[in-house]
């Protein structure tokens, strides 16, 4: 079947099997390999991206379901204004090591901050509780998101 998904603002139209998972569409068909996957069972969250602005596990959505919808991936975080504060926070606070879970973590972090600009530590921990990191023990991820909350994008401040 043919699907058209707007990924990071660009329409991507491909012929795919109906069973194609969104994570595979994004990686293999759209060629955006920043979105990873790490399990079979919707537990690890490495595949987290946004569908219509909502953070979801893209291993548990069919590409067909995203037909006509908007998908946002880690590749969209950096803009002409530079890195997103979440990205910068992960660098500043050593919020990553092997980097494999990082895109998913950052997409959840951005989604959280867009809905809750000043989350408590508990709220941050809860927000990322569906995602596994094997390297950091989470402490620095939490601090990275706190850093991003304390350094909002200029446009956010203006808004």
């Amino acid at each position, binding site marked *: 079947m043919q699907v058209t998904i707007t990924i990071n603002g660009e329409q991507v139209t491909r012929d795919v099997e109906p069973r194609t998972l969104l994570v595979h569409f994004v990686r293999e068909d759209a060629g955006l390999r920043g979105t990873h996957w790490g399990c079979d069972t919707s537990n690890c969250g490495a595949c987290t991206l946004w569908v219509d602005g909502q953070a979801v596990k893209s291993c548990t959505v069919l590409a067909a379901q995203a037909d006509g919808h908007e998908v946002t991936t880690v590749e969209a975080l950096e803009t002409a204004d530079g890195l997103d504060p979440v990205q910068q926070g992960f660098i500043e606070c050593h919020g990553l090591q092997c980097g494999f879970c990082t895109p998913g973590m950052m997409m959840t972090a951005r989604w959280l901050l867009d809905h809750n600009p000043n989350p408590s530590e508990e709220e941050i921990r*809860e927000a990322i509780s569906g995602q596994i990191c094997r390297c950091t023990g989470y402490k620095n991820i939490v601090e990275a998101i706190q850093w991003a909350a304390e350094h909002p994008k200029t446009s956010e401040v203006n808004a």
Partner: protein
Amino acid sequence: MTAIEEVPLSPAGNPIGFGNMKRVEDQRFVRGQGNYVDDVNLPGMLHSAILRSPFAHAKINSIDTSAAEALPGVVAVITGKILEGIPRPSLLGDNFAWMPTLSYDTQAVLATDKVRFQGQEVAFVIATSRYIAKDALELIDVDYEPLPPVMDAKKAMDPDAAVIRDDKGQTDNSITDVHGHKSWESGNAIGTAEAIAKAEADPDCVVVTQDVMYPRVHPSPMETCGSVAYLDKVTGQLTLYTTSQAPHAHRTVYAMVAGLPEHKIRVISPDVGGGFGNKVGVYPGYVLSIVGSIVTGKPVKWIEDRNENLVSTSFARDYHMKGTIAATKEGKILAVDVDVLADHGAFNGVAQPTNYPAGFFHIFSGSYDYPNAHCKVTPVYTNKAPGGVAYACSFRITEAVYLIERLVDCLAAELGMDPAELRLKNLLRPEQFPYTSPTGWVYDSGQYEKTMRVALEMAGYDELRREQAEKRARGEYMGIGISFFTEGVGAGPRKDMDILGLGMADGIELRVHPTGKAVLRLSVQSQGQAHETTYAQIVAHELGIPPEDIEVVHGDTDQTPFGLGTYGSRSTPVSGAAAAVVSRKVKDKARIIAAAALECSPDDLEWELGRWFVKGDKERGKTIQDIALLSHGSLELPEGVEGHLEAMTVYNPPNLTYPYGCYICVVDVDPGTGQVKVRRFIAVDDCGTRINPMIVEGQVHGGLADGIGMALMELIAFDEDGNCLGGSFMDYLLPTSMECPDYELGETVTPSPHHPIGAKGVGESATVGSPPAVVNAVIDAISPFGVRHADMPLTPANVWRAIQGRPVRVDMAVE
């Protein structure tokens, strides 16, 4: 907090030397621009999938692949029979169906005669897409004849147990190591037995014996294992992109397995999404991707599912330990004796130095001063996946530390003594270093009591004990657990340590370009450790070149010198030392060149960071950048001195380094439900010199999460029918942000006396040291119920059952 020597900052704001520096690697990772194996796509590339055995033990009568081959999109289906027909001109066998393990055993690439664990590789499908390859698996018809599986290691040597390795002509399930022994001993058996017997007879002494199981767990890096193989038939060149912690060692193994000339093999380990020992072994899947490329003439990608990763690749531990500790009633430890039954699974595939069939387990005497220690370790085959040494274990020091730290707490309970006080009474003293342990290790340096007192102070230990007493009085159960661990990391030296005959020493090359920028080529492999950052800092520290001017190259056997790779926390102790040594070689050469340019004797020159100058005339000097240009220029050099500024070295460590630490965990236990909440975790590590404290602390954080995971939830158990009960992330539970507390880190710094920059490895310290702290805390919490020990994982059910006095057996299915 880390006390960092003031170092100058580079133009980019980085420390020219040691100190916190943002990671070079992060720039690509935060943009989603990492390049992991599954991101590799070659023109014409095919995909693959492995059919795995549903049985733990079964004879294969026949395999019918015709329906799978007929599926559109399927390019080839390979079975063990086909592999048997592919000649392999190598010393290790004559065909592709079997391959050597890292412990001189053999392992089936694809099963031919029978399957020996659930999840074993049976057939390999190559197709135009991952989805089609998976579809084809369902069309392969295998006629299995189930055999009784051996799932309980304690019954593996029963006379009526099924024989697993009949392929080797075995008549039982014993494992004979490369030295011809069926069990392996270390320490003083007679002296230890005598000391324990004497203590048993002495009313002023106590003897405590405890069974302690370290169950089977799994490293589970977020990226599963995989590879992309391409054999160019015209040039004979094999390129293998793979998830490897040891690209050079893997290349040599492939040369042995495939009989391919080693100079025609290029192994590339791109960004690796975590390893933790899971990516040390050579798995059938890697070999099959190579075979697939040989058969199809195209690049073939193989990427594991998580289920495949959990059920077939290197697990860790599975040690059934019985420990006996003897002490005086004043709390002076006299002797420890240990008997271990080691479950190695169906193939002896442990990745460890050849001379150490039980890894470094015999460091179990720990951080304490006593003369008599002895262990006996007996491995057996079972119908489970092979492995045993993985998951940041420092070659089984995890098991050793867990055992001794549990025994010390059991002893404290027996004596009615505070576990902190008992430890302080027995810790090795600074003047005892270098200390030769009762099992022959030579600990390099340590200030154990100082470190422990820092931890106690940070924890507010006395106050915690007061709080605990108050809470107990009103029926609340909090626990405080202490662990004091000594690690030994940085294998070799090469004379003592090898894997498959490859000595554990590592090469390194440093080249300074004419403009003073440099490239450093490493044999070791980052899986998240940030080698591109810290190695640049080592060179910066030695030569004064800004770290941003130093490119660190790793992960490509065509681009880097030979070495044994990254595991067992060996990068900094071995390759980090190599980086310092090679920098000093360049510095020495720079001195000669500077002297020639300054028309003086090299002896007249003095070094300050980044610059040689004439003693007594500081203005007269040459920077390392000046010297680099001069070395490539027309300056006349002294006789015998070659141009250019570069050096290489192979570092053969004189000894391991011995990082250590004291961890304190505080938990709250709900006895009504058995739930455990980790409230605080204090970790004081001494890993000698810290190159980049931020990165050191990050590694400690990760290891603490591992410890919480293993102590509370991680487990691969099996039922009696041979089914793996931990084959997905729904069943194999890893800790989330909610179970992990806001760790409190401290440090002491006792440099290694034999390491060029005094650094010790730290990558595994917290994984090794933290499980006993958590378990000791939980047991401490529920000790009022008469509990002295319960096996990990301390799930709510297991804690509750321990409180009821009916502990569960953790390694088999819950009944």
